[in-house]
């Protein structure tokens, strides 16, 4: 299908904003979206199913004090959209509407430098990526099953605001997923690996699909050899790249300004205070070209910016959307994001990372007599109020006398954000971005994000496994 943004002209956008403010709200915006998503599912050596989804709609938001009125419509007729604006307007109870400011189109960076647009590539070429995975995975010893999928979305957005912003963005997003089941003597293990970014088909020239398949095969076969994870508190070395999920969960969510504005985060009212070891600097950075977490403009029409959250252990600031920035009297940071036109914006992360430190990677392991090397993760979750978090380790190893030894399975890490960040005792110099695979969920809304981290040593963390009796 053709897709593309619904053709709403300047004059009509102004009418929508006027209608949205006609009960006296402080601010209004119109979010126009068109998205086209395609998935190819591979199983048993062939494309088994193909899905396509096309969504177009318009969301209208009105802010009045701390209140948000929101309505949306996927019926794009003018009367339906004006009715949505009138519904959103109901949040305000006064009169005396301020006239929307004249809009000027925002000048934005291009952080998704696409050379070969996804829309221009033939379906056959996308199928060939999956065939490449199959060729590299299915014939390996002990591989019992190989499942894969190719997913792409192109989201086009237009944001028009009552304070004079007009911003457009066209956001490509692709991801390749590879799942391998390996079996030996009746024992079966699964490993899943993914990669992707905001890029075009040229992405796969730099990221050979065979490497992804080999990683999944290696992961699944290694689990066949894995021993049960130890249980109890012990030193933990977090691997570079995907371990950045620790920052996202343990720190990032607690620094989203909505929780802090409401005083419900463990970081509330702590700007300027020490919240982590002085080795820790934490940044949210939407500026890596082609990264899954890259963003030119947020979903409120503001430029997406690099924000230092923690600097050498001291809390510097929060991630804001317009509402939190206004109510906390801070500058917005361009972190107002939403899943689609059906949702109102919330402060959200983009790519959350810890920059490289000074230590040599080998030094981190050398100092550990008995501990866990958590090399990669499948996900995690946090309790914002307390800062307690959980991570699931997909690839982990024992550390014994300074050396990485047997692979372990079934390890979970639990801890408390500020407490763990206070125990970061070494930070290596090998900063790495995670492969682009993360989705972040908050209040029922999912958005693509990324994370990045060098190897770091945490002096003590609780590991949940089945082998009791403390450290191995």
């Amino acid at each position: 299908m053709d897709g593309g943004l619904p053709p709403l002209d300047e004059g009509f956008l102004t009418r929508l904003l006027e209608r949205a403010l006609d009960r006296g709200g402080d601010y209004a915006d119109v979010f126009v979206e068109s998205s086209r998503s395609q998935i190819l599912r591979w199983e048993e050596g062939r494309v088994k199913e193909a899905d396509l989804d096309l969504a177009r709609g318009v969301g209208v938001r009105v802010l009045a004090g701390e209140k948000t009125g929101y309505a949306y419509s996927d019926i794009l007729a003018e009367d339906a959209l004006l009715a949505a604006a009138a519904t959103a307007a109901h949040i305000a109870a006064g009169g005396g509407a301020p006239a929307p400011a004249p809009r000027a189109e925002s000048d934005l960076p291009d952080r998704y430098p696409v050379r070969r647009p996804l829309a221009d590539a033939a379906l056959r070429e996308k199928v060939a990526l999956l065939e490449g995975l199959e060729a590299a995975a299915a014939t390996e010893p002990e591989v019992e099953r190989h499942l894969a999928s190719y997913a792409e979305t192109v989201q086009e957005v237009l944001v028009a605001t009552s304070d004079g912003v007009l911003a457009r963005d066209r956001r490509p997003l692709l991801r390749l997923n590879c799942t391998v089941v390996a079996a030996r003597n009746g024992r079966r293990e699964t490993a899943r690996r993914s990669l992707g970014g905001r890029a075009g088909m040229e992405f796969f020239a730099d990221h050979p699909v065979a490497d992804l398949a080999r990683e999944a095969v290696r992961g699944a076969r290694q689990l066949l050899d894995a021993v049960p994870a130890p249980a109890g508190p012990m030193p933990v070395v977090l691997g570079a790249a995907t371990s950045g999920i620790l920052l996202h969960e343990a720190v990032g969510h607690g620094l989203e300004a909505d929780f802090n504005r409401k005083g419900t985060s463990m970081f509330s009212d702590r700007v300027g205070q020490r919240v982590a070891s002085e080795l820790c600097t934490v940044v949210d950075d939407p500026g890596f070209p082609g990264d899954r977490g890259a963003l030119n403009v947020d979903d409120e029409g503001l430029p997406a910016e690099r924000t230092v959250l923690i600097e050498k252990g001291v809390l510097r600031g929060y991630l804001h959307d317009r509402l939190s920035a206004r109510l906390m009297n801070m500058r917005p940071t361009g972190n107002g994001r939403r899943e689609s036109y059906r949702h109102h914006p919330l402060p959200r992360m983009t790519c959350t990372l810890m920059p490289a430190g000074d230590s040599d990677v080998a030094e981190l392991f050398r100092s550990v007599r008995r501990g866990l090397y958590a090399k990669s993760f499948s996900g995690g979750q946090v309790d914002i109020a307390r800062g307690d978090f959980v991570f699931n380790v997909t690839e982990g190893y024992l550390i014994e006398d300074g050396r990485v030894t047997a692979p372990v399975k079934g390890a979970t890490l639990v801890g408390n954000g500020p407490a763990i960040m206070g125990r970061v005792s070494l930070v290596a110099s090998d900063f790495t971005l995670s492969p682009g695979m993360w989705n972040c969920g908050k209040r029922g809304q999912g958005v693509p994000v990324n994370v990045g981290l060098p190897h770091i040593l945490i002096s003590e963390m609780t590991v949940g496994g089945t082998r009791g009796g403390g450290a191995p």
Partner: protein
Amino acid sequence: MSAAPDIRDLAARALREAKRAGADEADLRVFESRELQLVVRLGEVEVLKEAGDRGVALRVFTGRRRAVVGTTELDPDGLERLAREAVALAAVCEPDDTHRLPEPGLYAAELPDLDLCDDGAAPDTASAIALARALEAATLGADPRIDNCQQSRFTRSLTRTVYVTSNGFEADWRRSGYSLAIQPVARGAGGERVTDTWFQRAPHFADLRDPEALAAEAARRVLRRLDARRAPTGTFPVVFEPRMAARLAAMVFHCAAGTAVWRGLSYLADRRGTRIASDRFTLVDDPHRPRGLGSRPCDGEGLACRRLALVDGGVLTHFATDLESARRLDLPPTGHGLWGGGVGPSNLHLAPGPESPAAILAGAKRGLVVFDMMGQGFDATSGHWSQGCTGLWIEDGAAAHAVSEVTIAGHLDEVLAGVDAVGDDLDFSLGAVASPTLRVAAMTVAGS
């Protein structure tokens, strides 16, 4: 709003377009829904969202090739493009013999009226705001340590769905849904903050309980999180509160799902007909409960469904199948298909046992009560489970203090075999998957 054609006419039109574009067979689902979402915080309305949407998802079959296309554009041109796009997409797929509509005889012959929709007339927006305010005020008033609130939230949805197939099946049903939720924050003596979410869901507004009762329970639940300590590391009995036991039930369902079984992605793949749990463990799926949160007159593929014990007295009796997995496994479909692929439960629950939750806790002597679980630490293929939790520590058969930063771990075989008590407190108001309190004799607990 614009006059829009009835979605039943749209469905018929889209089927015709699919045939014209070259599909051998097709089915499609059209829905229209209206939602109200309301968040109150500290007495003020924070978010008021009201909207309606419509969408269609069309699945076409051409020579046993299958593709699914969805859109929000329901105009005639949009539907014609949708059909053409679907047929073109199917062409890149390879044929699979299971990719075809069911034989017409498998469709549900009757669609029972399960009373799943009220008219959505009550409450009006002002009454909904009053309800959310009353819930928050009662929660904040319950104890001085509860000094803040993340949100008090009311939602309503009304959905009509039409499902039609090119070989003659047609269903048209409406569903309403309501939820009321509160997320209070309590502050301990040392400045520690804790939060908890408590809620209720119901298909009919009349079935939502009075906000005072919900507030009292929310207050009790948030306050008991205060002054959490670490749990010891070792092997202990673990008591799962109903909502957490329901997650265990969902894990077992996932492993008994035909879709995971035929792919070898379940540790239960070779275990049908054998004992997988203690004899106290009976897992039932009941699609026809009147006013049930997970109730459905037929499954997502139009097939008949009925009450079924998937695990009966500890023995795995059935895999839950959709049409494709049933064909793969050469088993009859059990009516668990979801439209568009996969299987899912309806009203899935563990059959209640004879004991009170208090007796189950007392019987644990020294161990852990789990009231919250975080992260996804379960691997269905191998059956290994490792999970972060929050809960209460039991000493001398009574709750002694809260614990956080604790993990539980074990293989699901050991966990299920170790179920040694099932409570009498089954309640369906929290979700479509429900369970009474459950105790497992021994799991690895890791804390300090």
